[in-house]
Structure formats: C-alpha cells, structure tokens
C-alpha cells in the first residue's frame, strides 16, 4: 500500500542529492561577487522546497494528508510566486540592471561553478533572449496552474510536484552546460510521470509509461549525439576542461569553437558528421515538440493527465523541444540547417496539416486540444525553416503565445471534465446556460487558439506566414488551409458544447440528473489571469517580441553570417 510513498521518497532523496551538490559548488572565479539570481532563486529553491514538502507529506497517513493539504498548497503557492517575482523583476530591472541587448553567445547573469572536474562538467547557468521569455513563462505558469487546480485531490503531494516541475523546467532553459542540460531535461520527466500516474484518468498507467519511455528513448538518442559531440570537440586546457578527458561539456565553449571553425568555408566537424549529429539531436527535440510522426504519445498523455499536468505539459514542456533545437543543433551546425531546411519545412507542414485534420476527426475534447498543440508546434518548425530572423522571432513568439493560450485550453478542458464528468464533444449542449463563465472562457481560449487578431497567437502566425512566403511561395496555401480547418474544428466543438440544447438546456447523462454547476472561484481566477495576459501580449506583442527580435538578429549575426553560407 505504501509503495507510492516510497517512490516519492526516492525522487525526494534523489533531488535532495542534486540540490545538495549544487549548494556546495566552489565558484570558478573569486573576483566575481555578484549575486547569483539564477541557480538558487529560480532553479534550486522550487526544487528543494518541493522535495522537502514531498518528503514531509509522504510520511503522513492518508487521513493526515487531507489535513496538511491546505497549508502545503498555500506554502507551495507562496514559494512559486518567488521565482515569478524574481524573473519579472529581472525583466524590469528592479533588482539589478540587466543588459538584455546581448551579442551571440553572451549571456546575462552568467554564473559558473565546477561540478565534476574530471570530465569537464560545470554548473553553468545564464539567460539570453531565447531562454528568458521561457523562464518567465514557466515561473508565471506554475502559480497560475496551482491556483487553477486548487481543489485537486491529494494536494499535499500534487502541488509540490507542480512546483518541482517548474524548477526543473527553468533548469532546462538556464543551463549552459550540456551535462546539466541533460540532467534537467530528464528531471522534468519525473514529476510529470508521477502526476500522470497518480492523478490521471482511467488509462493513466499506460499513458504514463508511454510518455516516459517514448520521450526517454528519444532523449537517449540525443544523449548519444551529445556525447559524440563532446568527444569530437578539440581538446583544450583550462578550468572548464576535464582533467581526465581534456574536453568540456560547456556550451559557451562549444559555441565559440563552432563559430570560430565555421568561419569562411570551413565546416565544423566536417559535413557528414554535422548532418549525422544534427539529425540525432533533432530527433530528441522533435519527439518532445512533438512533430508528426512522433506525436502519438502526446494525445494519450494529455487525455490521461490531470489538468495541472496538462497545463504545464502543453504550456512549457513541449517548448523544451523547440528551445533545444534553437539552442543546440541549429546554433552549432548552421550548414546542416541549410542541408535539412526543406525537410524541416516538410515536417513542420505535415505536423501543421495533419494535426489540424486529425483534430476535426476527434470526439474527445481534450484529445482535440492535444492535437491542436501538435498543429501549432508545426508553425514553429515553419518559422525555423524560413531561415529569416523574422521567422525565428515568430517561432519564439509562437512558443511564448502558445505557452499562455494552451494552458487555458487545458484549464477549460479540465473544468469541463471536473464539472460535467465527461470529455465527449456533444455530450453536453447549451453549456452557456448552466456555466456561463466556463462558456466564456472556452470561447475566449478557443478564439485565441484559432488565431484571432488582438490575441497573442495571431502575431506569431502572421509573422510565420510573412517569413514563409518569400522562401516557399505557393506552399503557403497549406498553412492557409489549416487556418480555416482550425476555425472549423474549434467552432464545431463550440457549437456542440456551448450552444444548442433548447430553452431548457440539456445536461449530460453523466451528471445523472443533477444541475450542472459553474466553475469554482479558483478556476475562475486562474483562467482570467491567463485571459488577461493573452490580451496583453496580443495588443502589445512588442513587450516580449522586442527581446526575441534582438536575440534573433544576434543569432543570425553570430551563427549564419560567420558560417559564410
């Protein structure tokens, strides 16, 4: 009976070890006395706090757990607000003056501590225009998710897991060391695995395993690529280099090596090796994104996952794939990007079209929304394949906008499931009569997702199309077709849930004749926050887009221009 508790203790213990290691790193340079705003406040703190909470909660009896759930979730919420406050403050320069106008391979708030000296692993963190929006997004989504799923059962362990998830995700975005990156990359799987396994739907066991094994297999291929890359780099000496292997996992060193080598007509590691390594790394990221045909884990995971898990999974975890692509393979192997450009475009287009068409054939609301994520992630690939700064900026903005909109989609699905005990489209008609708030949020989220102007998603879609046309011409009709299909499946599902039902409304059978309730206060608060930010970033996209545009310009200057393509 206590097997689950032991599992929790196991992760708790593991994470404490990680956190402990982190706390005892010696600093590389003694002269640098600036405060480290990333390691502990953004990454370490949420993970350590959640570990302690989990370790504490898992020791209690079932009856006690119900009692301690309230203080624990309050504490978790407060703890999750700290990274949000810090990342917001960093953006507005409230804490310290941060120079976000960075050149390629320059990072703000960079910090480096030696970790495993023998093989050249260091705890190296920093942020730039690529990672900062994602870091802010993650720190924003965690408290919103906690609020939205306030009443989830077993809150004593559920909410700390969400917090841990947030810390691990931020860790992925800030790490500047391949080893560290991979550690956090896999670390994100663990809380998600348990979220699905413990709080999921009927088929949760299958979904959790599929999710874990599928993405893990892909990550292993990526790991092979990373290790090959590690050994193919030139040997060097210095504090970053391993004392035994003579090589380093440090990304900044890798970037400068690659840039220096790519100058002129040279090709870093040779053309064939570039193409092979690029493909290996991309495979890991494409599965995470996910792109068709590697997408089938996503609908299963989403349908079974609890609302909070889905919100973070769709909101941030998918973007890890896009982030990884831009951070590693595209930055290191510019020649391979040109080589694979059309294939990336084709995969993006197939994801976009296939995701949308399959959406139209779904009868399960959450499954439909999951496939719409696949479709939207295709847009990111199109932006990358356009080989224009505007396309890359659009991809970044798509990541960001979808990161705000898709949690709202899943929050709506979750509320629907919670109050109507069904996910079938058409099982409930005339919802507007019973749950006017839920109906409004559903319509808002659906409209945002189908790219209505003045909401966040539109700018990204428009910019991708603008970047796409000069490069691929009339292929643009396919994304255009998808715009119409997207509207079709969203409107069709709204017609059969919000609308219709006659004067009396028609509550679903799953309610057994009870009057359907409207959403709770916490769901209301969570969704309205997401809605407000969708509008803010829709009307004033430049708040986030400015930084992204700067980053893409620096990226093109640093990567493609030095490559001499």
């Amino acid at each position: 009976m206590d097997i689950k508790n032991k599992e929790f203790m196991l992760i708790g213990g593991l994470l404490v070890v990680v956190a402990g290691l982190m706390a005892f790193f010696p600093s590389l340079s003694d002269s640098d006395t600036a405060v480290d705003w990333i390691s502990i406040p953004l990454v370490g703190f949420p993970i350590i706090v959640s570990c302690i909470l989990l370790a504490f909660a898992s020791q209690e009896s079932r009856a006690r757990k119900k009692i301690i759930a309230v203080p624990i979730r309050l504490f978790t919420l407060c703890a999750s607000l700290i990274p949000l406050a810090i990342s917001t403050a960093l953006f507005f320069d409230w804490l310290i003056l941060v120079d976000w106008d960075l050149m390629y391979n320059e990072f703000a708030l960079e910090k480096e501590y030696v970790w495993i000296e023998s093989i050249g692993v260091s705890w190296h963190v920093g942020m730039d225009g690529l990672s900062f929006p994602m870091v802010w997004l993650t720190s924003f989504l965690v408290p919103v998710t906690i609020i939205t799923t306030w009443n989830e059962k077993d809150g004593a362990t559920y909410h700390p897991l969400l917090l841990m998830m947030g810390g691990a995700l931020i860790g992925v975005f800030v790490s500047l060391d391949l080893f560290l990156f991979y550690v956090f990359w896999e670390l994100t799987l663990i809380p998600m695995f348990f979220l699905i396994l413990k709080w999921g739907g009927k088929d949760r066991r299958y979904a959790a395993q599929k999710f874990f094994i599928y993405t893990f297999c892909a990550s292993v291929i990526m790991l092979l690529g990373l290790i090959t890359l590690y050994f193919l780099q030139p040997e060097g000496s210095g504090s970053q280099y391993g004392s035994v292997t003579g090589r380093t996992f440090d990304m900044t060193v890798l970037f400068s090596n690659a840039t220096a080598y790519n100058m002129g007509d040279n090709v870093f590691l040779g053309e064939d090796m570039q193409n092979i390594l690029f493909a290996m790394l991309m495979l890991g990221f494409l599965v995470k994104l996910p792109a068709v045909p590697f997408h089938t884990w996503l609908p299963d995971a989403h349908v079974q996952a609890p609302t909070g898990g889905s919100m973070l999974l769709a909101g941030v975890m998918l973007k890890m794939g896009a982030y990884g692509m831009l951070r590693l393979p595209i930055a290191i192997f510019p020649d391979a990007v040109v080589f694979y450009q059309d294939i990336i475009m084709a995969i993006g287009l197939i994801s976009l079209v296939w995701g949308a068409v399959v959406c139209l054939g779904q009868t399960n609301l959450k499954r439909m929304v999951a496939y719409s994520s696949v479709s939207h992630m295709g847009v990111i690939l199109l932006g990358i394949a356009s080989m224009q700064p505007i396309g890359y900026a659009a991809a970044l903005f798509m990541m960001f906008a979808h990161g705000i909109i898709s949690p709202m989609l899943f929050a709506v699905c979750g509320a629907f499931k919670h109050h109507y005990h069904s996910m079938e489209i058409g099982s409930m008609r005339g919802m507007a009569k019973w749950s006017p708030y839920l109906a409004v949020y559903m319509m808002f989220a659906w409209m945002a997702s189908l790219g209505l102007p003045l909401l966040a998603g539109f700018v990204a879609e428009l910019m991708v199309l603008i970047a796409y046309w000069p490069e691929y011409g009339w292929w643009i009709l396919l994304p255009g077709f998808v715009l119409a299909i997207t509207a079709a499946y969203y409107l069709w599902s709204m017609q059969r849930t919000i609308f219709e039902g006659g004067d009396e409304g028609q509550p679903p059978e799953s309610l057994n004749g009870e009057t359907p309730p409207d959403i709770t206060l916490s769901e209301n608060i969570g969704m309205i926050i997401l809605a407000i930010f969708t509008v803010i970033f829709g009307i004033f996209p430049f708040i986030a887009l400015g930084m992204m545009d700067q980053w893409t310009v620096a990226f093109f200057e640093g990567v493609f221009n030095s490559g001499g393509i």
Partner: protein
Amino acid sequence: MSESGIIDYAVLIPLLPMLAFPVILFLGKLFNGTPTWVKNVKEGGIIALTVMGASLILALLVIKEHMHHVGTANIFTWFESSWWNSETGAITTKVFGVGIHIDHLTVMLLFVAAFLCFLINVFSIGYMNTDPINDNRNHRFYAEFVLFCSGMLGMVLADSFLWLFIFWELMGLCSYLLIGFYYERPSASYAAKKAFLTTRVGDVFLVIGLVMLWNLFDGHLDYAYVFNQENIAAVNSGELQIALGMMFIGAVGKSAQFPLHVWLPDAMEGPTPVSALIHAATMVNAGLYLVARMFPFFSGAELGALSTLAIVIACIGGITAVMAALIAFVQMDLKKVLAYSTMSQLAYIFTGLGSALWFANNGYEELAAFAMGASLFHLFNHAMAKGMLFMASGSVIHEMHHAHHEVAHHDDDHHDDHDDHFDAQSMENMGGLASRMPITATAMFVGSMSIIGIPLIGGFWSKEGIIASAWQVALKEPIFLLPALLVLIGAGMTGFYMSRMWFMTFAGKPKTEVAEHVHEQTAWIPIPLVTLTFMTLGAIILAGMHAGHWLGDFDDGHYTNFFDGVGSEMEHVFLNHDPFLMVLTYVAIGLSLVLGPSFAMALYGGSLDKGQKAKPWMQWAINLSAKINKKSKFDNSEWANSSLAESLHKRLHFDDIYDAAVMKIVVGFANLSAIFDSKFIDGAIKAIESTSQNASRRVRALTTGSARDYIMMTALGTLVIFILLWGVA
C-alpha cells in the same frame, strides 16, 4: 507627417466602445435583474448609447476637420521584424506601427458607421428590452454590440491594410457572437458557425494577399507607403494583381458575394438590430471598403496591367446582383428578402467599383472618379436605406409578436402551443399593415424606393451612375457587357422583389387574425426610423452638393452653390448630352420604376380593409396596386410551380452542395485520418513496443533456474570465445 489637432483624439472613437465592452459585461453580471439596471440603465443599453454618442460626436468633429485634407497620426510601434540577406549577410529591420489615416473614404464610412451605430443602438433599446425572451441577457447583447462598433470604427480609421484586417476579424467575431445570441436555438448556432467559417475561408485568402503585399512593398502595409505612386510603379504589376486578387476573395466572403454568399441569409437568425447593423449597414460594407481602398494601386500601376482583376470584380458583382435578386423573388421571410436584397445591392457597388478600377487602370481619370463616386455614394445610400429597412422590418416583427401574444392571451385554447406554429417573420401572416403601422410603413416605403432607385429618392442618384459606368466600360471592353447587362436586368428585378415585399406586408387585407391586432406602440423604435426616412429623402441634397464627385475625387472643385448643383445633377441624369447614356437611363428607370413594381402590384397588390386608411403618400400606391391587381388577373402559378422556382426556394442548391462537400469530403477525410493516426502511426509505436516485449519474454525464457542449462550455456559460450580467438589469431 503627423499633425496635432482633433485627430489626436480620433483613436478614442474605436477605443471608447472597446473599453465599454468589459464594463458593460461586468456591470451586467453584477447587477443583473436589479430594478435600476433593468429600468434606468436598460440592462446596459444606456451605457452603450452614451459611449456611441460620444464616439459619434468625436467622429463628427474629425469629419468636419478633415473634409478636405488627409490626416494621419501614429499611435505606437506594434512590432519590429528583421530580414536577413543570405547573399550579403546584411540584416535589415522593419518597423510596423499602428496609426490613423483619414481621407474622404474614411470620412464617408466613418459617418455611416458612427451614425448608424448610434441610431441602431437607440432602436435596440426599444426592440431588445421589451422582449421577455431577452430578459437578463441584454447586457451581453450591448457588450457585443459596442465591441462590434469598435471593430467597425477601428477598421475605417486604421492606417494600414494589416490593421484593417485586424478590426475586420474583430467584426467577424462579434458577428459570430451576435448571430448566435440565442445560443439555445440549434439554427442560430448553426448559422453563427456557418457565417464565421464562410468568411474565414475568404479571410485566409485575404491574409495570404496581405503577406504577398507585404513582400512586394518591402515590409510595408501602411497606406502612406503603399499608395505612394513611385512605390507602386516599382512593383511587378503581375504579382500585384495576384495579391490584390487574393485580398478581393476576402472581400467576397465578408460582403457575401457569389460564391461565398451562403452565410448572409442564415445570419438573419440574429436579433433584428444585429441584422440591421452588421448584416446590412456596416460590416458587409467592409469588403467594399477594402476594394475601394485598392483604387490607388489601379491608378498607379502599369496601364491595363490590372484590368483582369477589375473585370473579375465587376463580373462577381453582376452575377451576385442577379442571382440574389432571383432568390429574393420567392422568399416569404421578411428578413430574408432584405438579406438577399443586401447581397444584390452590395453586388451593384462591386460592379461600380470594378468599373472605376478598370477606368483607373486604363487611364480614364475622370470616368474613374465618376464611377468611384457613384459606387461610394451608393454604399452610403444603401447603408442608410437598408439599415432603416431592417429596423422597420424589426418593428413589424416586434409588433406582430406583441399582437400574437395579445391574441393568444384572449383565446386560451391555443395558449399552450402558440409559439410553435406562428411565424412572426413570414409575410404570409401579414398584410394590410400600412394603416396600422404608419411610421414603419412610411420608412419601409421610402427605403424600398431608395433601393429600387425611384427617381429623385436616395439610391437613384448612385444606382444610375453605376449602371452608366458599367455600360461605358462595356463600350470599350466587350467582356464588360456581361456585368453591364446583369446590373441593368437587376434593376428591374429589384423593382419587383422590393415592391413585392412592401405590398405583401402593408397592402391588401390582413392574412391572419394577428395582423389585424398590430399596433405601433413601442417607444424608442420610431426615432431612428423617422431620422433615416429624412436622411434617405435628403439624398438629393447630398447629390446636389456633389457628394458623388467629392467621393470620387477628393479635390473636386465643381461645387458652387446648391441649386446649380442639383440642376447640373438633374441635367446629367435626365438630359444627358450623350444619347447612349440618356437612352440607358430611361431604360433603367423604365425597368425599375414601371416593369418591376407593376408585376409586383399585379400579383400582390390589393386595397386595405374597409375603414382603414393609410397616409396619403402611401394610399395612392395601394389604390394603384389594387387597380392593377384587379385588372390584370395575372396568374403566375405556372411559374411558381416550375422547377426554377423550386431551386430558387432551395437557394439554387449552393448550401446543399457546400454542406455535402464539407460533410462528405472534409469531415470524411478527417475521420479517416483520425483512424489512420491511431491505427497506423500509433500502431507502429505499439508494434515496436509489443515486439520488444516479446523479444524480452523469449530472452527471459532462457533463465530456467536449472543448473544443467547454465552449465550447458557456459560451455557453449566458452567454445564460441575460443573459436573467435582462434579465428583472430
């Protein structure tokens, strides 16, 4: 080019209603059902009215300031985008902003939008707040109403094609929400979805057109840059024509033209004020506005390079004009007749614009300005008249409802099921209302005459211009004979279906008991009807003030004084020095004034009940219709039972074909793909999973636990290693 002045506050015109949207929604949620909210604030109606009044005043100030000069103002930079040249490695940054642009086109449409939004708001308070079906949800109506107004005003004021599109979509959203206002009716939710999706198909092409235009004009979509004649001349006109053609498809969807017209009649499911505002007077004009905005491209591009597009625009217009008029012949639903009439009249304007664009692109500047002026003037006249007609029809429907409730109340036997059988919108239940609803009947009378083009009233001034322009192009370009002929025939058809509607509703004897009990009794409703009646009758003043010329050419200096103006317009129309045009005018007048209405009178005319008397300005028409009806004994049963009439009833099968195509092809394909996705793509993953599980089961079977097997394996393994070592050595 920014300047200060009233234009700095122009941004408030769309912003005020936009801000009112959440306010009304929130207050409505808060105070729903309280007496103050219902009685004094009219469930948000008064807030909306205040805001629309403020917008109207601001709009009038802006119009007064910018009657004769273009104004622009920047608001903020929306986003920056960078482009990389893969040859040189240079990176250039484009800035894209938000701003306001005011010229004569803006001024005209701004007036139409602000004025009608305000009047229809007045009407709504009378119409919506007195119908018990709307109780406790009118705040939602007013919130969506002001959001729509914000979209329309914003679209008109926007300074770039992109912002035009953004507000265009906002209107599309509000149209969707308001058509589906009675969300519990399956027909309303179906109509809302249909409207959004059909226009969305057009919008997709519009976006692609914008993307192409963005590319052609080097990252600019703002009017100041793209309308610069040098910039236009530098652009490949072949590509420009395709881009503009793509954008035109968007206009076709929004303005409900063939073949994307199917949504408009269904959109009548929305409350009548919505039909009046969105689906007659403002939003459907957005497509026309977009095409009219393209004018500078046509005058700036290579001579004749864009003629094909101009011809296509005119032909789409001509086809729709006749097709919609044909379908209107058989409609029994009062609002549906008006919907098809809207479609048909918008098509006229498209034909006029097509002629103007053709002239502009072929170097006939004066003729282009004339055609443009006529088209835009028709847009103005049509918006005023059609807004009024819809409000009048709303008034009829509203009072029919009331009367029906009264009748049903007296007669308790039918009380239970009265709602299921009675259709308050069907003209078959009306008749003889002219004496019972004098204001409404007058408004409808004047509005119909304006739409028909009865000389000296409203639409006459502009419609003649459109027909004349189309024929003038046809003299130079034979393909143009098609739209030119179609709009000429359409004039007669308009005369028929509009007269049919009026006589069926207001003349003759009441066809049901309900129609006998109708009274004009609702407050607020007559205000906009009277205002617009005078507005429509006053079109002659605008014509005299050379509105047509001014709309076609901003710096027109012909205007000297009013009487000369009217005189020259009269002369221009009735005694044209060009004999061809003069004959054409009289043919058109003959068709629309004599032929169409006479047929309608012969079929549907009749005198009122004994003792009932209509106002004198309508009584003569009723008397005439009764006389013609008696004399002619015209029998149309052969026509009415023909297969043509049947297919007209089915709207020429467009809806059926589209539905079938969508349901069979698209949905069928989608269902197949969903199966393919789970069976094959996911199936492959599951196959890998089960194969590896099977393999591991086999390997596991080797672990037998028997020492004999292990010794055997050890021996075998040693042997293999030995052989391998031996082989290497």
